[in-house]
């Protein structure tokens, strides 16, 4: 099983623990990944607001790079995943987008046919590697963990390709397979605030706070995410939130970190030391 890998800017920055844990888990489960050569930023939500054309062209370049490698393209960040998917959908749906989006490939002798498939690691790990194989590889079941599975918005919206749009369940199934308890978490696809936490702190942080507070109310011992921005927003403002609204302290980890723990991988290799609110030691060694 081999994939082209598009880390995106966050996995090289604030979300590096996601990359560390993802690569470690992939290695452990026999999924080979190869980073896309000299990839560019996906444009996230900012580019669509500034220049539609440039946004589509940037994504098409990454897609074309993947087509050159002729593997499926792994995109772990929700924003990257959505940008790539949206570009593919709109190229297929709107001739005007197709003309625009492929308009800057010639200089690098690239081409885009639409055949490359963009995949999220959650989809690949649960559906391709499969829960039976993962179960078999578990060394330390996640006993005592009560996980609130948080999917964020852009992984199933608007293109619900591998999970339900209103009520995704893949992560729930994964953690149950790893021996953890999963709390019913109705906010699992509600927005974390995205870049609003940085721009208009009060608005963005309130959204994140609601998510954490509800996880805490439901007795979760940690929140698991699939997106670097969600993890950042939920993990790094808890002191401010506690000051402003009510006390909240909730470890927020990547789903790959929990998977890594269950596979018996080293905490450091999984980047767990990068959590601002650390996962309690007793849990880790339960």
């Amino acid at each position, binding site marked *: 099983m081999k994939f082209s890998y598009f880390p995106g800017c966050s996995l090289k920055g604030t979300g590096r623990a996601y990359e560390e844990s993802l690569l470690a888990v992939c290695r452990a489960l026999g999924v080979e990944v190869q980073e896309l050569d000299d990839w560019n930023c996906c444009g996230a939500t900012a580019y669509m607001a500034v220049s539609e054309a440039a946004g589509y062209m940037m994504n098409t370049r990454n897609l074309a790079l993947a087509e050159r490698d002729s593997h499926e393209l792994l995109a772990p960040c929700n924003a990257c995943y959505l940008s790539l998917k949206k570009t593919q959908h709109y190229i297929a749906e709107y001739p005007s987008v197709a003309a625009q989006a492929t308009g800057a490939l010639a200089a690098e002798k690239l081409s885009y046919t639409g055949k490359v498939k963009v995949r999220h690691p959650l989809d690949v790990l649960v559906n391709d590697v499969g829960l039976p194989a993962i179960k078999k590889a578990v060394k330390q079941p996640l006993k005592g963990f009560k996980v609130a599975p948080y999917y964020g918005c852009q992984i199933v919206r608007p293109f619900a390709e591998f999970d339900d749009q209103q009520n995704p369940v893949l992560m729930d199934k994964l953690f149950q397979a790893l021996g953890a308890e999963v709390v019913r978490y*109705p906010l699992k696809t509600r927005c974390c605030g995205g870049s609003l936490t940085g721009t208009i702190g009060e608005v963005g942080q309130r959204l994140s706070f609601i998510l954490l507070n509800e996880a805490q109310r439901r007795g979760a011992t940690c929140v698991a995410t699939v997106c670097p921005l969600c993890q950042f927003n939920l993990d790094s403002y808890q002191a401010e939130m506690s000051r402003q609204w009510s006390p909240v302290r909730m470890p927020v980890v990547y789903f790959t970190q929990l998977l890594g723990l269950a596979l018996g991988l080293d905490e450091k290799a999984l980047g767990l030391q990068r959590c601002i609110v650390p996962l309690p030691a007793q849990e880790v060694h339960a």
Partner: protein
Amino acid sequence: MKQPTNGEARIGFYVCHCGTNIAGVVNVAAVAQYAAQLPGVVVSRDYKYMCSDPGQELIQTDIKEHQLNRVVVASCSPLLHEHTFRTACEKGGLNPFCFQMVNIREHDSWVHEPGDAATEKAKALVRAAVKRVALHTPLEVKRTRIHPDVLVVGGGIAGIQAALTIANGGQNVYLVEREPTIGGHMAKFDKTFPTLDCAACILTPKMSAVASHPNIKLWTYSEVVKVDGFVGNYKVQVRRKPRYVNEELCVGCAKCVDACVYKEEKFEDEFNEGLAKRKPVYLPFPQATPPVVVFDPDACIQLKTGKCKKSCLEACDRNAIIFDQKPETKEIEVGTIILATGFRTFDAARLPQYGFGTLPNVYTSLQIERMVNASGPTDGHIMLKDGRTPKAVGIIHCIGSRDNRTNRWCSRVCCMYSMKLAHLIKQHTGAEVFNFYIDIRAPGKGYEEFYEKLQEEGVHFIRGRVAEVADWPLTKEEEGKLIIRVEDTLAGFVRRIPVDMVVLATGLEPQPDAQDVRRLFNISCSTEGWFLERHPKLAPVSTFTDGIFIAGCCQGPKDIPDTVAQAGAAAGEALSLINAGFIELEPNTSYVIADDCSGCKTCIPLCPYNAISRDEEKKKAVINEAICKGCGVCVAACPSGSIVQNLFTDQEIFSEIEAVLG
């Protein structure tokens, strides 16, 4: 005027303006001018409305004055007005089949932009009709006898009403119902809007009238499995499922139910929408018609394993229980059929954001109908799962309606039944009731007045489609409540409204097997899956298959008054056919030119009606024109070209092909 050519044909040509419907796009004067110089045309006119009386008289006068022997009218679809103009020809003294119609409205002016292309198309179609009509020959209309018995499929209020109307008119009716009892959805309702009369009080007398009517043969727990024949002469097979009870003997005393080895009621009670349980043997509800118990083969130990001590058998003093009852197939002959197969309600679990099935105290409207009913599972008490009485209730409209992701259509009844439920809930509990609506649709008699009454009662109406029923509180007051997140669009902001109970006003959808049923009866469905009427305004209960009528919600969502009215209309249509005694058939049947037939038998297996046989003596094929339905399959297949279809002869079609191309 030129002298007629093309044999003896003297053709009158008329192009209709249809107001501006045609004339606004097609240059009708140019078409008339063009037609005037076509071979055989002796009169060519354009006129504002050809279907009007003066328009028809124009044809009649011209036939006499100009000795016309052929007529062509270019106007709307022949499916709409062919009959009108044929009759006009007949009144003018011309055989009605020496007529041809050109569709330049539905197939031209309504689908193309104004201009030369549309006019050229009209000319081409006219050219073809003129050329073709010259080949037409006078034909005779055939008649077929109508069998006076009627089949009504579906025993809800629509089927009941239709069956009673026909039976009261003196004709025999077979009423076939799939469930163990008639009554349909209406039997589950507590009150009816806007009058608030008790549903059972108005329905049950009709149900017993059905059961006791000498002209009605009632078959419940039965399904139509095969339909052959055509208008006037349908042969229908009905499969009677075993209910393991002799219907003639059982009186519905329910002693067997009491005696059942299951002391507890354990199985989901369909009639009470899952809010109650029943035993393996049960009477669906007290007024079930016929009053005969039914055994659930998936629950009864005897039927499942054959190893029960069968205490029910002993309890039955009439020896009505038959464990080895087999399904039975009945064959009947009827002349007309009325389909009243109803609807199903939208499955609220398809919209997980409203919490049906995951959050306690989220109910469907039909569940509340049962709950509020005095003989229902809670004896008429509206209560939460824990037995408390709700203090605040939210009713969410348009669940599975007006939503492109589920069902696009408005279900027409939800606004009104939601208001009815709001009234009943408030009356029974005194709770605050909130209605969340997109638009209030109250267009029936007395409906707007009912809305007004509800507003005066203090029921809240919030204009906004609910985004979510949540169980994550943001304030203390919200804890333990269901929180409805909605934009109050009239106030212009988003609100969170905590309630104890949520009622989902689920919409109406076609029955899951509507497609199978329509195939069985050879009728059509609209894109949404409702049975398609012949014309939305002028033939609302007819279908494209003669002798088959539709009534009630199988044709589209409607309330009880409209359903009953439609059922009466369908019964009237059936009675009208029966009263006439016969039906006129289009003479488009086929016949064999015996001299040309080689007797190869190619045609015989092709005929779907077995109308073709072989005269063994003469070694020729013979078509029974009384059976032939005029599809023309045999004509196209005949290798020697010896079969001719009236109105669609090879020459007629070839001339059309040649002429449309120039």
